């Protein structure tokens, strides 16, 4: 997984890095609520230089979906 993305997710949700896996969804994370979602959006936009639409923000409910949305925005997550 992309190192920067793991750092963002671990920081926002207060998780250990090894807990961040593509299968992780909002239901696995106790504090992944609307306010954390806003923190996540701000961090992703800052770290990856993208601007997320409201449709993207609502869809981002798992690590796999975040990966997919960032790739669609042209972010190279393999780097």
């Amino acid at each position, binding site marked *: 997984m992309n190192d920067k993305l793991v750092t963002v997710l671990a920081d926002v949700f207060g998780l250990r890095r090894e807990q961040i896996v593509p299968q992780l969804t909002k239901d696995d994370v*106790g504090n992944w*609520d609307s*306010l954390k979602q806003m923190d996540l959006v701000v961090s992703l936009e800052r770290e990856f230089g993208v601007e997320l639409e409201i449709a993207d923000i609502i869809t981002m409910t798992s690590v796999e979906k975040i990966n997919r949305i960032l790739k669609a925005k042209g972010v190279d997550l393999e780097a």
Partner: protein
Amino acid sequence: MKLDGAVSLITGGSKGLGLAIAHRLRAEGARVIVADIDNVALEALPDVFDRRSLDVTQPDEAKSTVEAIAAMYGRIDVLVNNAGVIYSEPLVNLMNPDGMMHSYDRFRQCLRVNLDSVFIMTSAVVEQMVLRRTKGVVINISSISARGNEGQTAYSAAKAAVNAMTVTWSKELGRLGIRCNAVAPGFVDTPSTRAALNETIIKHIEGLTPLRRLGRAEEIAQAVVAAIANDFLNGTILDVNGGVTI
């Protein structure tokens, strides 16, 4: 005020913080009337308590219950406005795209049970205090959320307004010898807290609290008793929160 023999009405006293306050007042020798909407929980209370079924959001019901209590005991010395419902909903909920904004109905409902109820009960009881020239005490159970707590628009607004009414009434009623104070708990280990917050958030709150733990219901009850007993305490919002800031 001497608590021994004081006729004390506590709303929402059949569970949680209210029950701890009721027990503590009883232990100090007060005559305790518990008013609650939950008849099952009321039934389960020991009969050292005078138990009254009451919805504190209904002005007519509140007035007639209070009049009946005052007639029976000759006066009401203490009102503890404890009944309330902790309610969390952010203004914008990104996780619920079909209903993203805070519902106005739920906002009003939260204000009705946490704010209107305090006005309704205090009006009914203070009327009896004034008519019977009782130098009584009103204690409002506020919350640390009155400072503004993210995820709690309505509840924070209700508790902030309760604080404002507390100070207002302390000024208006002080000349009649009626005192009014609030006790503002932080995060207390009650079933309602456990239901409102998940384990991760509770751990986070404990970490933010200088004393590194949640409060105990008895510690809130202790503060309520102190605020009743001290005859020079008026218009105070007493924080009981382990030093946590939000």
